């Protein structure tokens, strides 16, 4: 695993701290602006916390990426858990299937530049986000 990629397992809430710090560290390394870094960190924090709430454990992978002009960070957040039955429903603001906060997916999407979610019921859910800057 190169310095441009980092893989972390999340099981308990104190692991979120480590994940967010890893994202911020990578953001600093690639020279990402503070606004973009804060937005990405917030999205990753929200998504990772959801994993801990709704599934036993998960894996977060951060990777430095680049397009023609800008550095960026890609973050994969995946869990082995019940999966999301109706992604379209989960993506609508203010709808939650359990608990008051729901999955926070629409909000996290607003904070990033690219957002991709795939879920297989009963198996795993994977969210991929990219933030440029």
């Amino acid at each position, binding site marked *: 695993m190169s310095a441009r990629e980092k893989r972390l397992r999340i099981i308990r809430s104190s692991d979120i701290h480590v994940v967010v710090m890893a994202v911020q560290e990578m953001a600093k390394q690639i020279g990402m602006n503070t606004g973009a870094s804060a937005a990405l960190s917030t999205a990753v924090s929200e998504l990772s916390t959801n994993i801990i709430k709704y599934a036993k454990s998960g894996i977060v992978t951060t990777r430095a990426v680049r397009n023609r002009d800008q550095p960026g960070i890609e973050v994969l957040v995946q869990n082995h858990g019940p999966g999301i039955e109706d992604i379209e429903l989960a993506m609508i603001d203010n709808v939650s299937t359990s608990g008051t906060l729901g999955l926070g997916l629409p909000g996290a999407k607003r904070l990033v530049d690219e957002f*991709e979610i795939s879920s297989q019921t009963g198996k795993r859910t994977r969210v991929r986000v990219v933030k440029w800057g």
Partner: protein
Amino acid sequence: MMEAALVVDIYSRRTGEVIAQQSKAMIDMSTPIAALWGGVLMLPIVGLLDSSRAEDIMQRMLEAIAEKQATMFILDISGVSVVDTAVANHLIRMSKAARLMGCDTIVSGLSPSVARTIVELGIEVGEMQTTGTLQDAVQVAFNRVGVEQNIERT
């Protein structure tokens, strides 16, 4: 065994190339935030206020509030071409975020038709203050910070 992953939502708002071009356009178009007296900041918004622009403006606004430790921010929208529900929601979001930083927002430059549109569309502006003219907004802001400064002195 092959996993049949069901990809149902792929969203890519901007490609890198478009971002670079937009960034240049933003820099050309972006008006500086004016620092008035007493910790009052002011920014006129001109043209179309879409979600991408709103996000950039909010970012600049909040950073300026932190940098200047501002307690009042005036957003003048007399130059905004279209004010519909989406635009109103952007403005409401900006004022909520500023409030969380301890800064109150006044949206100035509401034309009579914009005021009517907001009411007719049933938009809840909540705690966001609005005025018709920039002048009124500045007056309100100065009165408010004047009062705050008096409280600090006593």
